[in-house]
């Protein structure tokens, strides 16, 4: 079945790269579209770009050719030319020469490599920027699961004006921010407004304390793991880590209490859900039991 000309032969034997890059590209594309976790989306993005790079590099392949760096006998400065035969030396004596077609066949095409150097750099830049966005989103919404983010945005949509307004308002003058917020309140239920105030960092500056406390303690549980991974001295690290939530909780009002209890047993996504529900709870009624269910 591998006779010449059959598509199997075409794709699997002679042009394997062209098949592999397509597969990689599809994997990446599917991850970018379908995955729910932003980080997984980014991983998909990297695979996607890598596939394209593979394609370009495959274009650069040339049978019987070496890397596009002059062999010693073609070195423009002829430093190595003395070791080779005389014909070369006399060429190298009067400077570099234009290689003839035969010698050109000996080197592979430099252009694709250059292009891919550029593409790689662009990919790195995009990735770094996207990671920063993920951090920012996590700060704002306490999760990097797309559906949860959308849910929270929905929650803010009702009964609030776009957060751009909030920002421009209380960055311009706080006095008007006081006047502007109640204007938006009555439309929606009471619950969205504290969550809204979590939405934009600059509102947080002026917003009521319970929300900020809840948010910090919501992001808190990351801390001990990260520190354990960081410094080998886990004893002191783990000794201090429960201490910190206590201080935060003690400084905070009773509403911030549920979080330390919700923390230890929850996995990341579960924890995010717990915190979010807990915030709803704190907004509506200070009953600490809700996050458990």
């Amino acid at each position: 079945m591998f006779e010449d000309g059959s598509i199997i032969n075409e794709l699997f034997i002679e042009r394997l790269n062209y098949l592999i890059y397509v597969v990689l590209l599809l994997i990446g594309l599917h991850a970018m579209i379908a995955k729910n976790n932003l980080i997984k989306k980014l991983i998909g993005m990297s695979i996607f770009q890598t596939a394209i790079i593979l394609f370009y590099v495959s274009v650069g392949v040339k049978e019987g050719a070496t890397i596009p760096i002059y062999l010693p006998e073609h070195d423009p400065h002829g430093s190595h030319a003395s070791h080779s035969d005389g014909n070369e030396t006399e060429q190298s004596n009067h400077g570099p020469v234009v290689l003839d077609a035969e010698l050109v066949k000996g080197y592979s095409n430099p252009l694709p490599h250059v292009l891919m150097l550029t593409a790689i750099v662009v990919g790195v830049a995009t990735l770094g920027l996207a990671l920063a966005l993920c951090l920012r989103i996590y700060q704002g919404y306490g999760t990097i699961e797309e559906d949860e983010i959308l849910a929270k945005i929905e929650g803010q949509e009702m009964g609030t004006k776009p957060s751009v307004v909030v920002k421009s308002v209380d960055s311009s003058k706080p006095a008007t921010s006081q006047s502007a917020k109640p204007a938006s309140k009555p439309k929606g239920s009471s619950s969205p407004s504290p969550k809204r105030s979590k939405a934009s960092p600059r509102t947080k500056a002026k917003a009521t304390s319970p929300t900020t406390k809840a948010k910090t303690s919501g992001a808190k549980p990351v801390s001990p793991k990260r520190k354990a991974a960081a410094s080998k001295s886990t004893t002191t690290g783990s000794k201090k880590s429960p201490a910190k939530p206590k201080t935060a909780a003690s400084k905070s009002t009773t509403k911030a209490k549920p979080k330390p209890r919700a923390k230890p047993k929850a996995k990341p996504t579960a924890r995010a859900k717990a915190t979010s529900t807990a915030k709803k709870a704190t907004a509506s009624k200070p009953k600490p039991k809700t996050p458990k269910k």
Partner: protein
Amino acid sequence: MKKLSLIPVLLVGALLIYAAEDFPEWGSPSAPASASPLSSHFISNTGVDTEVPNMVTAVLADYRGFDTMFETVVVFIAGMAVLAILKNSSGPNSKKKIFHIETEPDIIVTNTVRLLIPVIQIFAFYVLAHGHVSPGGGFQGGVVMGASFIMIALSWDLDTALARFPVERCTVVAGLGIILYGGIGLLSMFLGGEFLDYAELANIFPVSREMARYHAMLGVEIGVGLTVTAIMFSLYANLSTEGRLKGGL
């Protein structure tokens, strides 16, 4: 959602496979990409035009130097954008999230790194400077150099690294890198050529036009290296601390 997303994905796949049939022979020297006057010119004339043995470097820094300048700009943009996104985004309560590490950094790690760092940095310079005759160049050297600073941050902590290379200085260095690159282009423009026409530098330096390109490429690569080094480190510093640049690793 997942099911739906398969449809466009598979469509794209079918499209690409369909095209893959029509591609020229695998790796044949007569394929348009390899046989085009462009690539043959790069291969045959690089030595004559620029006297640089490494064609990739020549194409990167000279033939397509304009691309590479914007490539550097892209790196610069990434650094600036990350700063813009993360700068004081975590609000006033951010101090609550800084973890003070009481214990000393591990002695074995730090001492090993003490030994390694100089070697790494020397190697970075080598990669940068030797890019003309061997694989390497500004980006690679810059990344290695940036990695050395990241290594400091990993083995001690970020504050130690930032004490040696503050983020403000990162911005300055990155900007200087671009200014160096563009400045060489500008200078060669003032000397009567087009933008980035390094050959014109022969008017003020005692070298042939080809060697002028040769040396200008080195300068350009240095500019790239500066930018990449600074941005790599500032990216790490910002991302690892959510832009607070305090505490953490």
